[in-house]
C-alpha cells in the first residue's frame, strides 16, 4: 500500500472503531455492476473495498491476492493517486494499447512495485472497446514476488482496467482461473 493509502486506511479504521461499522462488504457470486458501466460474474464470493475509482476484491487479504477494477479514468489523470502525481504519466484518451501498458507500469512503479515485466501483450475486446490483455510479474517493495494479469480498454474516452495480482507463491494461482472467467464475463450495461 502507498504511504498515503496506509494513512487513509489507519484513519478510516480509527473512524470505524469509533463508529462501529465494518469496512469490507461481501461480493456474492452473482452478476455485479462495476462503475455503473459493465457487469461481471464474480464466480465465487469476495470481500470488497472501494477506494476512489478503484474497486478491490480479495479472498485472503490484499497483500496476498486481489482483483482490482478501475472504473473510468479521465483524460489527464494518473493511474493511482500518490504523493508525486505531478510527475507521473497521465492517461490520454488517444493512447494505444502499448501506451496503456506504459501507463500501467508507471502506475505500479508509483506504488512501489519493482522489476516489472510485461509479457504476452495482445488485443482483447473489452466491452465495446478494442482493448488489451497482458501478463505481469513484479516484486513488492517488501521483496515479495508477485504475478499479475491485466485487461483494459478505453470506452468513450475513459479508461477501464481489471488487474488481478497475487503472490507468486501459491496465491496468484489459487484464483487465476476465477480472474480469467471474470475478465471473460465483462458485459457492457
Amino acid at each position, binding site marked *: 500500500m*502507498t504511504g498515503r493509502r496506509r494513512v487513509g486506511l489507519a484513519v478510516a479504521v480509527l473512524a470505524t472503531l469509533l463508529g462501529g461499522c465494518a469496512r469490507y462488504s461481501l461480493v456474492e457470486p452473482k452478476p455485479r455492476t462495476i462503475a455503473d458501466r459493465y457487469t461481471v460474474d464474480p464466480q465465487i464470493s469476495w470481500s470488497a473495498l472501494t477506494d476512489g475509482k478503484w474497486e478491490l476484491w480479495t479472498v485472503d487479504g490484499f497483500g496476498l491476492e486481489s482483483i482490482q477494477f478501475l472504473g473510468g479514468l479521465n483524460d489527464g489523470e494518473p493511474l493511482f493517486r500518490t504523493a*508525486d502525481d505531478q510527475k507521473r*504519466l497521465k492517461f490520454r484518451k488517444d493512447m494505444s494499447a502499448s501506451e496503456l*501498458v506504459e501507463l500501467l507500469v508507471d502506475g505500479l512503479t*508509483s506504488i512501489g512495485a*519493482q522489476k516489472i515485466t*510485461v509479457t504476452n501483450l495482445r488485443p482483447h475486446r473489452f466491452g465495446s472497446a478494442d482493448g488489451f490483455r497482458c501478463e505481469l510479474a513484479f516484486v513488492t517493495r517488501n*521483496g515479495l514476488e508477485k504475478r499479475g494479469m491485466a485487461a483494459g480498454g478505453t470506452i468513450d474516452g475513459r479508461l477501464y482496467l481489471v488487474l488481478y495480482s497475487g503472490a507468486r507463491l501459491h496465491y496468484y494461482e489459487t484464483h487465476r482461473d476465477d480472474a480469467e472467467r471474470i475478465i471473460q464475463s465483462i458485459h457492457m450495461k
Partner: protein
Amino acid sequence: MKTLVSLALLTAFAAAGCATPRGAPGALADIRPGQRPALDSDEAGLWMQMDRVEGNLKTSGQLITDPALRTYLRGIVCKLASEHCVDIRLYIVQTPHFNASMAPNGMMQVWTGLILRADNEAQLAYVLGHELGHYQRRHSVQLWRDARTKTNVATVFAVVAAAAGQGYVGSLAQLVALGSVMAFSRDNEREADEIGFELMARAGYDPREAPKIWESLDKERKAGKDSEPSIFFATHPPTDERIETLKESARKAYTPDRAWTDGRQAYLAATRPLRATLLQDELRRRDFARMQVLLDHLMAAEPESGQLQFFQGELYRLRNADGDPGRAVESYEMALMIGGAPPETNRALGLLLMRLGEKPRARAAFERYLTDAPEAEDKAMIRSYLEQLR
C-alpha cells in the same frame, strides 16, 4: 529498487598503515582490518542494523549479479582498498539514482545511476575512494551519535529501516527531509575527498578526473526538478569549493612524467552491455530535464550512437510537450540511420506515426520491428495495429 537501501552510512575503515586519528581532537580512531565493535557499544547497534540491511539487500532481487561486472568492479575496489579488500562485500544495486556508500560492517553499494554517469574508471575510483574515506574515518558513527542528541528528528536507524524495503521516490523524499541528520559535515567531506583523491592517485588513476564527476553531477542537479531529492547530495552536500579544491589538488598531483590512466576503454567494455537497461530505468523516473543533461553528456562523448538517439527520441515522446512528437520522430529516424539502435526504435516510431495519422510510414516501421524482433512479447498487439492501419 527494493531499496534505496541504507543511506550512505560510512564508517571508517583504516587505510594502510594509518592508525593515528587525523582530524579534530577526540575524533574516532580509524577502523582496523577485521575489527568489530563490542556487543554493548552503540556502534554495535549500527552494525546490527547494517547487517539487517545487508541481509535484505541480498534477497531484494534488486542486485545486478552479472559475474563479469562484479569481478570488474571488485577489482577496482580492491586496488583502492588494498589489504582491507577482504573486509568489503560489494553489491551492485539496480536503481537510476546516483549513489555509492559504505556501511560500517563492510557492505559497499554501488548504484547503477553512478555506473551510468561515470565517464571512466578513474571517476568511479575517485567516488569509491571517497566512500572508503568516510569509512576509514568512521564519519557515519559520528553522524549517528550526533543524531541521537537531536530531538524531533528520526534516528538514522528509523530512516535506514524505512529505506530498507523502500525503493521508490516517495521514500526518498522522506529520507532527504531528514537531510540535516544524514549530511556529513564540511570537515568530513573534506577529509573523505582527500582520502579518495590519495587512493585514486596512488592506484595510478589520472587525478584530473576527480573534479569532473562532481561537475557533471552538479550540472544535472541544477537542471533537475526541485521535487526530486538526491540521496547522494543529501549525504554529501554539494559545494563549489569542493570542485575548486579538487582541481587544485589535481594540478599539484598530476605529474606529466607518470603514466596516468583514466581506464576509459576498460570501463566502456565492462559497462556498455548494461547501458540500455540503465537508460530505460532513467526514463522511468520521468525527470526529463535531468535526463536531457545526462543524454547531452553521453552524446558529446559519442555523437554517432544509434542507441543514444533512440533514448533521445523516447525522452521527447514521453515528455510530450509542444512539438515533441515531431522531435521524437526525427530522433528515431536518425537512430535508424546511424545504426546500432535497438529494435524498439521501430516500434516507438510506429506508435508515434500511428498517433500522428501517418499510416503508411507507421506500417513500415511496425513491419521493420516485427522483422527484427519476431518473438517480441507484444507481437500480437503490433500485428493488430498493422490490421488497423490497412
